[in-house]
């Protein structure tokens, strides 16, 4: 039993994958000698050397292009995009090339690569270094979208992402890097596409992802202790593929649903979940699906502004109470 941070679990997960498979290499900016700007890749260069841990120039297109080309030959690259916001400068490679080449080639080409990137707010970095961009990749056919909420999920999902024959975007949450967990077994595998239940309950279903899943869990503990409400908290863990069955099963039991998204409102993933629920569980619903999101604004920087933009534990608690008790 050892205590592991989310940050340390990233480098451990990459190392475990690289030890198991010589085809795995790692490429990114400041990832080797510097150990990553979030110190999430410390020790990899020392263990695997420059041939497998490559410090790249500030050339996001070249980084992902190289990873894609290498993956086309059967290698299994892990590429880092330092901040998910930077995906915008290489979005052609992601959205047009990596996502579509398998389909356009009629399956001649597989692209088994992982793009890992630091995502989300909480660091007061302002609007260009704090976004939650899972939605961007979710809407493009051909990309798998993973966002772990805890160290064990980082370990298990990274193992699956590296082994996956399709491209996976692996969104690590910046505000979770310091999150700690007691872990018995580090060399684990968690299938992509299986949601996790963080809190059991039959009064309401709260669906979250990454940091929002953890906040939903904290909210559920408060709801139970202080308000006698038993919330089921589902951590989706991946948006594509999506574990609709787990959502359905819970919604049939509770009849009430709240989604908690860190992204701005429009076209957030909660809208798709809400649509699926109305399509599949309409008769089980006791009221409309409620979406908690950031307002539809860029993320501001100052403490008080950022803290009041991203959904908080308190906001989730209040929304649930309002929904169930009409208060």
């Amino acid at each position, binding site marked *: 039993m050892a205590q592991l941070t989310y940050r340390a679990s990233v480098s451990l997960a990459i190392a475990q994958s690289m030890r198991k498979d010589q085809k795995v290499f790692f490429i990114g900016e400041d990832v080797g000698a510097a150990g990553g700007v979030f110190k999430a890749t410390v020790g990899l260069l020392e263990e695997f050397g420059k041939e497998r841990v490559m410090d790249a*120039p500030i050339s996001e297109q070249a980084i992902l292009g190289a990873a894609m*080309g290498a993956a086309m030959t059967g290698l299994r690259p892990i590429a880092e995009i330092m901040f998910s916001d930077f995906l915008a400068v290489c979005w052609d*490679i992601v959205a047009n090339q990596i996502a579509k080449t398998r389909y356009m080639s009629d399956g001649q080409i597989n692209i088994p690569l992982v793009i890992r990137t630091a995502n989300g707010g909480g660091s007061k970095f302002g609007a260009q270094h704090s976004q939650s961009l899972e939605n961007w990749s979710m809407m493009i056919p051909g990309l798998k979208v993973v966002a772990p909420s805890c160290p064990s999920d980082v370990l298990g999902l990274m193992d699956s992402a590296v082994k996956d024959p399709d491209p996976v975007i692996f969104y690590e949450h910046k505000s979770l890097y310091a999150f700690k967990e007691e872990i018995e077994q580090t060399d684990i595998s968690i299938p992509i596409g299986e949601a996790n239940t963080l809190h059991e309950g039959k009064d309401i279903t709260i669906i979250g992802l990454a940091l929002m899943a953890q906040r939903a869990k904290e909210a559920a503990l408060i709801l139970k202790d202080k308000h006698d409400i038993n919330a089921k908290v589902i951590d989706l863990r991946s948006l594509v593929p999506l574990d609709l069955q787990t959502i359905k099963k819970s919604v049939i039991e509770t009849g009430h649903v709240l989604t908690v998204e860190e992204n701005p409102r429009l076209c957030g993933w909660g809208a798709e979940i809400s649509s699926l629920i109305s399509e599949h569980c309409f008769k089980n619903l006791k009221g409309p699906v409620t979406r908690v999101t950031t307002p539809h604004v860029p993320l501001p920087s100052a403490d008080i502004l950022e803290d009041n933009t991203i959904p908080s534990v308190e906001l989730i608690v209040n929304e649930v109470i309002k929904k169930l008790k009409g208060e």
Partner: protein
Amino acid sequence: MVDKLNDDIGEEKRLQLWEMMLKLRLVEKKAYDLFLQNLIKGTSHLALGQEAIAGAFGVALKQGDYTFCTYRGHAHTLARGSSIEGVLGELMGRQCGLMKGKGGSMHLTDVDNGVMGSYAIIGAHLTIANGTALASKYNKTNEVSVCFFGDGTTNIGAFHEALNMAKIWNLPIVFVCENNLYMEYTPIHEVTAVEHPAADRAGAYDLDKIIVDGNDADEMLRTAEKAISKAREGKGPSLIEAKTYRHSGHSRADPGKYRPDEEVKDWMENKDPIKNYRAKLLDFNINEKIISEIEEKIKDQVEKATEISMTSPIPEIKEIYTDVWANGGSEWHN
């Protein structure tokens, strides 16, 4: 005058190059005819007039080498050995097409022949070609990656990112700029800070400045062989700028009226790579009967392949839902 005694290329390879270029020319002409008959839909970007470049690399490369080309890629695909019916069938959206109609004219892909895709958004494939080259280096194998692109590509960021990365990592790759003087409808010199859009940038990445007459098949072959050998020997990347000209407009929708008539006439009549190469073969005392036999053979192949393509079934509608994922399907939830 030709120096027959010091001929570094030889009759066998010249005839191979002749056959290759002719195939590229006649298939492209056939594609044009099929468009006029409305048997090919969508768009197309013909490489008529530019055959010496793809042809020379087709002769110089080995099985196992990787090539990447653009939406103007019918010729580059055929040059690697892809079947004519595979190319025409794809253009016509038939089951016999290289990708069974899933990709179309701008995305021809034939991995078995090293055709790692045709890329229709400028710039990206230079960075992707670095990836196959990186894989060869990583695996300590000796394939060479070749990436073809047009003059317009030299003004997008990915070109510069890719050249820098190829150089710093000493990748086994050859970048081939086919400078046909026009970036789509605009003369390249009007929108580029330097005279030679690729070659004048080479120095910025510590690469040699290489400019070649892309319509001189022999010169093109020599240049290709030299750059490929350099890459295969682990001596790093090359950037070649091959001057050429397209006989037709940018795409199906473009009659190319922005080009001066006398310029078009000069390139069509005096600088046509096929016409000039035929004359060169005769200068080398190659029997005209052999030259003509190859012409007849290719014509016959193109006609037969056209017949196969036209009679090949159209794809089944269920194909829409296949091959998004490696499991063959397109499901995104359970």
